């Protein structure tokens, strides 16, 4: 029984750690802020959940509610920050337009007569010329 439990915990821990690692890889490999948000907040959330479940399996039952709270607050709060960061990133031209398949928000803003480009921020030319890798170092 203990062995089975240990195996389950080990598998969950390793899978969770893998997802956290993949999140970190995504953080490095993706080029713009919003894409990085995907990697940082998602893969990592899944990883954390798996690790919490793994811990819950191997701990006495009375620790489970606390672990549940950790999961709950992670799920509640991560999206709020993501949305604020994403919104700010879009408004400050931190989205890599070359990788965008389509941008219906820009279409909408243009239709409203308030295209983003005229409201300050980086001009696209400047953004093109900048090496995205510079920010990493």
């Amino acid at each position, binding site marked *: 029984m203990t062995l089975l439990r240990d195996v389950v915990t080990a598998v969950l821990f390793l899978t969770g750690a893998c997802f956290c690692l993949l*999140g970190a*890889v995504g953080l490095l490999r*993706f*080029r713009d802020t919003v894409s990085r948000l995907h990697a940082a907040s998602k893969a990592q959330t899944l990883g954390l959940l798996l690790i919490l479940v793994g811990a819950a399996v191997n701990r006495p039952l009375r620790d489970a509610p*606390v672990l549940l709270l950790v999961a709950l607050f992670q799920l509640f709060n991560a999206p709020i920050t993501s949305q604020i960061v*994403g919104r700010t990133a*879009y408004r400050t031209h931190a989205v890599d337009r070359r990788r965008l398949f389509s941008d219906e928000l820009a279409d909408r803003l243009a239709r409203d*007569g308030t295209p983003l480009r005229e409201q300050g921020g980086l001009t696209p030319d400047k953004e093109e010329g900048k090496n*995205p890798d510079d920010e990493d170092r």
Partner: protein
Amino acid sequence: MSPRKRSRRILHHLPLVVWLWLLWVVLWGSLSAVVLVGGLLAALLIVALFPLPSVLPGAVPRPLWIGALLFHLLVDLIRSGTTVAWAAVRHGGRTRSAIMEVPLHIDDDVLITVVAEITTIAPGTVVIEIDRRRRRLYVHTLPVRDQETVDLRKKETQDLERRVARSVGYRHAPPGRGSPIDPSDVPPRDGTPPDHRGERG
């Protein structure tokens, strides 16, 4: 205040009190009398000092639908979590993304918040703008290969919206009161872009 009204108000605050009490007990990690009584007092004090407005009048939580919602979320978390992780490894910086506009049918602050939250939790989609007035979400999604992927993701978000609405027994606004498509294409009077509440300055 009539006693009836008062009792209804107390009933309205009850879930919050219970939740705060539960939180207190769980965080203390013990069931001693001091913790139980102290927690109840703290919860009552907080609710009395910082009363929250009532949200979603007439909402009836439906446990089964909420369960279905959570189950979908879990499946989605694993499925697209893998997709995003794979995209990061396989394509890295060359992964293509898109910003899509998702018209919503629900017209309620809380429900739109919930839809936006869950959309952002689900991997592969981040809400970057909420147009409250026009009931639209602008969702950055990744990875995107073609228009079909975008349409599929859009449909998924709208399915999610339907599940959220169902889980509290919310009915969609009658179509006469402005369908989500029509009123929005009218350009605004002034040039200010909508803020996060969908209002214009």
